[in-house]
């Protein structure tokens, strides 16, 4: 079995093991944690294997494999990775493992919870390794749909409504996306040759400009909805607020990254002319989203809403950087995806811990938690500082790479937009400090909070797992950024 397919198969095996062998919470989480641990080890191994393979293999994708799946329409199960997918896979594995730790004490239908969570992960992994549009789309749907169950069953608050809103909006986007993908497919014989779903075969074809202009926005929006593009972001605040902790982590940390990844790998890479023609429009939308999300976050009362709007802001920044069309900004966009994935997962985990103890997420009702829960408080402050782009953490590297890259754009309008977007760092610090200052610092808001239980070992493990890569990227970013730059080269050649 090849190194990549295992990423899809292992989750399925875990799901089967959970189905047949797990009897109660203890067994379910044991199987999950072992399985996700294996997955995590595999992803670390993949990084090293990739670096080793990259030294001798100059193809765009390495570890490729191609199996005919459905011959009539030329659908293949074709896989392969470049640096971008490798880091995304690693991100997914980390967040999942941390998510399992955070869900250690889930008491409601634990087995089913872990089954849904891990089934979802197989879709995410499959999405990142696919190089065939159709297979990719199938995995995408696998990743999106269990979300409905996860929020609808294990969520809190108006969970059914939120779950439905989230699922319907994402399904609507999928519908648009599938039109875009089929549009690409039916134009993939523009230079003669058979119709194909294979990304790299399509990349050799000059799709007619008229078709690109039509299908690019469809594909872009289809992916950008899950990447929280304004004004299609409204599923995210309510969805995240209602979702259980681990699901929020996974969703904001990983699933929302599928959007940026899809935009980059499919919409922009396959439809380069359309991308250039439409870039200004989407650029303004995403720049607006950055500022808008940040301002909206200031006024939120619920911790999860703050974080959800912050995610809107930060992920709009990813799209913004992607639309800047240069290597540095793209590198920044990918690092930002990683960084935001880790940090937002940490934030959701922390919010979950605070909520689990105090049973409220309202900022006004919380205060002075750090005195009672020093570990959680300290990590909260660190996460907050990292989130607002303090040097030494991944957020700084990502944002600066984006800003510097974006500012290298030769067009004045783009540079002015960059300045506008840069100003979001101030707004970000306002809402982060407001949140941290209110709930962690200050006097204790409620005497009942005096005896809140301290952080347990599994909570600490989950947080530290996430914190380590944040600091690693923040302190030594060079290796990562160079690795990504190499993989961005094909995009550069195709788009410019």
């Amino acid at each position, binding site marked *: 079995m090849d190194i990549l397919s295992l990423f899809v198969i292992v989750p399925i095996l875990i799901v089967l093991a959970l189905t047949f062998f797990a009897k109660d919470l203890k067994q379910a989480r044991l199987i999950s944690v072992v399985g996700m641990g294996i997955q995590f080890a595999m992803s670390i191994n993949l990084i090293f294997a990739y670096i080793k393979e990259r030294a001798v293999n100059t193809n765009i994708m390495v570890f490729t494999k191609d199996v005919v799946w459905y011959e009539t329409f030329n659908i293949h199960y074709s896989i392969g990775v470049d640096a971008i997918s490798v880091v995304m896979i690693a991100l997914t594995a980390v967040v999942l493992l941390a998510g399992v730790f955070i869900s250690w004490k889930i008491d409601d239908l634990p087995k089913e919870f872990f089954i849904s969570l891990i089934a979802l992960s197989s879709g995410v992994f499959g999405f990142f390794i696919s190089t065939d549009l159709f297979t990719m789309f199938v995995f995408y749907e696998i990743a999106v749909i269990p979300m409905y169950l996860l929020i609808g069953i294990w969520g809190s608050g108006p969970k059914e409504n939120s779950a439905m809103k989230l699922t319907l909006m994402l399904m609507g986007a999928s519908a648009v996306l599938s039109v875009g993908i089929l549009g690409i497919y039916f134009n993939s014989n523009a230079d003669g040759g058979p119709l194909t779903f294979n990304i790299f075969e399509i990349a050799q074809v000059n799709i007619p400009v008229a078709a690109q202009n039509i299908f690019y926005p469809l594909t872009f929006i289809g992916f950008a909805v899950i990447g929280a593009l304004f004004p299609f972001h409204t599923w995210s605040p309510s969805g995240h607020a209602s979702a259980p902790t681990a699901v929020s982590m996974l969703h904001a940390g990983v699933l929302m990254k599928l959007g940026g990844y899809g935009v980059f790998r499919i919409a922009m890479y396959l439809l380069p002319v359309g991308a250039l023609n439409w870039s200004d429009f989407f650029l303004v939308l995403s720049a607006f989203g950055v500022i808008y999300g940040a301002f909206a976050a200031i006024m939120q009362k619920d911790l999860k809403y703050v974080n959800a709007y912050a995610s809107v802001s930060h992920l709009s920044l990813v799209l913004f950087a992607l639309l800047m069309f240069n290597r540095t900004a793209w590198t920044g966009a990918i690092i930002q995806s990683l960084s935001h994935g880790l940090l937002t997962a940490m934030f959701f985990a922390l919010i979950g811990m605070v909520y689990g103890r105090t049973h409220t997420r309202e900022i006004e009702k919380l205060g002075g938690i750090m005195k009672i829960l020093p570990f959680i408080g300290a990590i909260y402050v660190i996460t907050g500082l990292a989130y607002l782009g303090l040097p030494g953490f991944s957020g700084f590297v990502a944002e600066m790479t984006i800003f510097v890259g974006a500012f290298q754009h030769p067009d004045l309008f783009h540079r002015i937009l960059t300045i506008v977007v840069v100003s979001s*760092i101030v707004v970000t610090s306002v809402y982060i400090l407001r949140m941290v*200052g209110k709930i962690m*610092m200050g006097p204790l808001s409620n005497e009942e909070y005096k005896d809140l239980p301290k952080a347990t070992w599994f909570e600490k493990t989950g947080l530290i797992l996430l914190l380590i890569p944040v600091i690693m990227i923040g302190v030594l970013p060079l290796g990562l950024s160079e690795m990504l730059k190499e993989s961005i080269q094909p995009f550069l050649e195709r788009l410019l």
Partner: protein
Amino acid sequence: MDFSYTILIPLIPLALFVILGLFSKKIPASISGWLGSLGLGTSIALSLYTAYHYFMDGKLEGVYQTFVYKQTWLIFTDKLHIDLGVLIDPISVMMMVVVTTISFMVHLYSRGYMHGDDGYTRFFAYLALFSFSMLGLVLATNLFQMYIFWELVGASSFLLIGYYYTKPSAVAAAKKAFIVTRFADLGFLIGILLISYYTGTFDFKDLTSLDGMLIAGWGASASFMGLSVFTWGLILIYMGGVGKSAMLPFHIWLPDAMEGPTPVSALIHAATMVVAGVYLVARLFPAYYFVEDGFALQVVAYVGAISSLVAALIAVTQTDIKRVLAFSTMSQIGYMMLALGVSKYEGHEGLGYMASMFHLFTHAMFKALLFLGAGSVIHAVHSNYMQDMGGLRKYMPVTHITFLIAALSIAGFPGFAGFFSKDEILVAAFESNKLIYYSSVLVAGLTAFYMFRLYFNIFWGEDRKYKHTPHESPLSMTIPLVFLAFMSIFAGYIPFSQFVTADLMPFEAHLNLPLAAIASSVGIIGIIIAFIFYKKPSDLPERFANAFGFIYKWIYNKLYFDELYIFVTKKILFGVVAFSASWFDKNVVDSSMIGIGNVTVSVSNKIKGMQSGKLQDYAMSFVGGIVVIAMVVFYIWIN
């Protein structure tokens, strides 16, 4: 010559921070204080050695050389990359000495001051983090490295101001400091982006070298509102400096920052971090001076002059001793700024530059001393307010003497350190801009006045009702005081112009006697007025304040800057922009999405109605359909 070992100077505090931070629970308080002091002791030893080594041997043909040791940290484009490393030149060595000295003194002092505090180890961890960041900033080889450490000092300042995090005022002050400086840093960042876009480099060496292409080509770049982009870039970078150095209009965070523990105020908000803005301008001085005839530099000069005057005026009215000192700091930094601003480049004309650095050095000593002395007083009487103090000279002789020395020094009393550096600044201002000179002289008088107002109020006058008799602070606190007092007297005799100059070439600076006489007599007049007003309790000050009525009130309330900012942020940014963004999101964007859902539901309800289950409805549709089809068929058939 090899200075690569200097990299250890910031790394030792970093290691300290990591150790103290990770094991803050496990390390007992007694050890962590010593550990911190020991680490900083090593750093200060190293930096003194470096200074000695550099100033003795660092010259080549009479010019101080610049040594750079760096390592690529992150690559952006082919040209732009961030390096981390150390840059050794006169000002960085000088700053390194200042930072390590003050930091070491503060470490020693804190062992006594923070004794018995819950977060003792945490405090030392933060101090180490700050020392690391500040040293990294000082030694930065390029703009971006400076920005990185600039942010880190901001964050450590946030942590230290908010050290008493259960106190709401401390949290608010910490947030305010961070956000205000962050806003200023936004200017810094945009400035960096602008400059790097047009020059293709972050490197200080490239940006300031005279024979390179860069500066020559700067005047001819694209222009915006009548100024070249470079001037805008430099002004924006200066905005960062304005924020960190608490110049007008970003000064509002500094008085509130006094919520932090007093040693922190001495270290960060008096001696080191707040002079980062001065250091930044000095670092880029050739660029400021040569681009467009130094327009940006004039901005620096005027901002400095106005800030120093305004701050001195406000300091006269404050009653919280730490706030008086904070405004005094702001005023003195304004001095340094204006000195830089009026300076020229070559030889003796670069006097302002050298005076600014000189004043930075002496100011660090006596202002740290003032803060530590104030800390000692606060430690004794447990209050920040002058009203609660008086007659303390009997109880705290060491504090009293050292405080007096510092006050004399800052007032520019002849023979003390402040006298020399201030004199150089006044000379530089006199030679270049009379308006600024007059305002500086006025500030000198005001400085002497408010300093001695403080001094007389604390140490003279009658005793207050103390809860328990004030006593002298422990040895751990007085030793740093004595050392700094020593420095406050004798630092002035260092021949600074031999070491730190704009063009890196030493020159001879002389005391300009007439100007020195004017300045010191103004200072002495200020002291005498303070003596009359405050030596004995009298109603003079009150009558005086009443005479000025609303002006006094205006100044007392810090010119209502805080209110203005609160109006802008709370009312406009939060109240209007943020509120409307969240309102818009909830009621327009979200509602329209929900609206789409509702429309779908109602349409499907309508369609559902057609499937009524009523036989007759079905039959009607059936017949209607047939009729229509028949009509169509017939129509086609006819044609």
